[in-house]
């Protein structure tokens, strides 16, 4: 696991740092609240929390432009919040209500936003990868310079259709960034027990796709790598692979007893590499913000999340007739 280069000077303004802090904190508090609501029995289906991985999407969204697309797996709440989707709509979808992004029929794994170019939330491991390549194919065909961020995990990196998509994306120079969020565990199986070589970013070499490893607990490093990848794609040079080394603090899903790792291991990452703490330190040591400023942001985020939870609890359940809608046109 890469350790943070603490001597590194932030290549970001106070305003940017505050923005990242705010966005990462929103995801964390949102997910904590989702965990609570799940515990209260308000969320059906499964629920996969993004806590610990916040710097990945926030860093990459900082490298994205209007019109760029994103698609990901079932651990998708963070991606939706980071691309600007409404926390109320996301939370209400978790609780399966009318006010949710899929009006209570998609659930945690299946939300979409055309306006924010978010193409889901997909529950089948790795299946979103060729779909992401297809989104990029459409943009290439249309002749615009949009890029598609296609997120998947270290577990999905062992699925066959990922490599079919790599080949086609490279063959046709598709503007797609394959973002491998390597949180070290495919559900309960550690990478060393599932994956023949530790460097997943080299898996594109056979297809001529450049890849690099990024410290996913450092939002600035993620942003920088994202900008490089975006420039590569926009220049028409085809796909790019980013293996973002990150860590999930919570279980695979809410029903995970986490027997596959020690409490100490989790605690160590939280204490030494936490992405939010990192930005907080940069803000304070760089005198970009005071403790009071950050407290005010905390309070503001708490209010947003609390409003989202209230909305998600108050929004009505879908009507029974909704069972039969949207199967066919």
């Amino acid at each position, binding site marked *: 696991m890469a350790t943070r280069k603490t001597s590194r000077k932030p290549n970001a303004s106070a305003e940017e740092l505050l923005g990242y802090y705010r966005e990462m904190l929103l995801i964390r508090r949102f997910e904590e609240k989702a965990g609570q609501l799940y515990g209260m029995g308000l969320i059906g289906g499964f629920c996969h929390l993004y806590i610990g991985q916040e710097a990945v999407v926030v860093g990459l969204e900082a490298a994205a432009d209007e019109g760029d697309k994103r*698609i990901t797996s079932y651990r998708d709440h963070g991606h939706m919040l980071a691309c600007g989707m409404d926390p109320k709509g996301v939370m209400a979808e978790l609780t399966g209500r009318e006010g949710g992004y*899929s*009006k209570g*029929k*998609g659930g945690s794994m*299946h939300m*979409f936003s*055309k306006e924010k170019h978010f*193409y*889901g*939330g*997909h*529950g*089948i491991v790795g*299946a979103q*990868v*060729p*779909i*992401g*390549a*297809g*989104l*990029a*194919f*459409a*943009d290439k*065909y249309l002749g615009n310079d949009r890029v598609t961020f296609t997120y998947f995990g270290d577990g999905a990196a062992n699925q*066959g*259709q990922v490599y*079919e*998509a790599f*080949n*086609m994306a490279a*063959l046709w120079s598709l503007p797609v960034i394959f973002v491998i969020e390597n949180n070290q565990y495919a559900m309960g199986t550690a990478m060393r027990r599932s994956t023949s070589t530790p460097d997943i970013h080299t898996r594109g070499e056979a297809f001529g796709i450049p890849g690099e490893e990024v410290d996913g607990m450092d939002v600035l490093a993620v942003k920088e790598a994202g900008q490089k990848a975006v420039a590569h794609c926009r220049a028409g040079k085809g796909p790019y692979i980013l293996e973002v080394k990150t860590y999930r603090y919570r279980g695979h899903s809410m029903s995970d007893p986490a027997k596959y790792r020690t409490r100490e291991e989790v605690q160590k990452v939280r204490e030494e590499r936490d992405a939010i703490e990192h930005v907080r330190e940069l803000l304070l040591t760089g005198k970009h913000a005071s403790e009071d400023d950050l407290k005010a942001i905390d309070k503001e985020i708490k209010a947003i999340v609390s409003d989202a939870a209230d909305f998600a609890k108050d929004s009505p359940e879908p009507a029974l007739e909704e069972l039969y*809608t*949207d*199967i*066919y*046109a």
Partner: protein
Amino acid sequence: MAEITLVEAVRAALAHALEEDPSVIILGEDVGVDGGVFRATEGLWQRFGRDRVRDTPLSEAAIAGMAVGLAAQRFRPVVEIQFQGFIHPALDQVANHAARLRNRTRGRLTCPMVLRAPYGGGVHAPEHHSESIEAIFAHIPGLRVVIPSSPGRAYGLLLSAIRDPDPVVFFEPKRLYRAQREEVALDGAGLPLDTAFTLREGRDVSVITWGAMTRECLEAAEALAGDGIEAEVVDMATLKPYDAATLLASVRRTGRCVIVHEAPRTGGFGGEIAARIAEEALDALVAPIRRVCPPDIIPPLPKLEAAYMPTAAEICAAVREVMAWG
């Protein structure tokens, strides 16, 4: 009007769709330079360019997945899978993604893609080149399953499938690709989906079928007519969602039903039809429902194929058996 074969009708429909709608793109193995394994796309690459008629690697899962992504961006991809038996790697994308995009997004994204694949036996091919696995797809809500049985229906149904806002699997009876010619008006007119076609009217027995087996059924009906038995032959054409009204009305008129398909018996779509008739028209039946179909075995090599495929004689025998009732 042109006198054309079924495969020529498929090609004409594809050409018309490419011409009328710039969002139509053809993807598949060998569909471009080579013109397709059965030449269904021959000449389209030269006419519409390699961007719109695109040769792909041998990667059925990713071809289908990319088609879902294209469709989500408002394209109308038409994918060719070389043989129906090669479609299994694509099943994840079809069942878990294409068929569910509308429902998951509450209609904000749709998946207007078509997956074409030649199906069926009787062409002296090995097992996975002779499959008839339509029932697997007919089990998937959100998907349309369409099977033409003549050049005219291939032309009209394929155009409607491409224009349909939802995903369609379009299984072409390869045995009929070049078996007959018929006059088809190549005017771009589609035929209705989700609709059965009554190919021959008759008062005594309903023979329900689809795809290549329509030929054997019509042949059987002709032979039976010589003995004074009037068989009605209904081509289901769309298996999902299917036209229960036409089916039930026919059985209510005749009181007898023989279902014919070339897929193995257990779990074949004939079981669904029989169940529906039993649920909704049992009172009209004067004889048990009979299925004429292969047993639960793997399609054999050519020397035994004739014993595997249902024949007109077997259909006649089943009809005579149900005629003995009542």
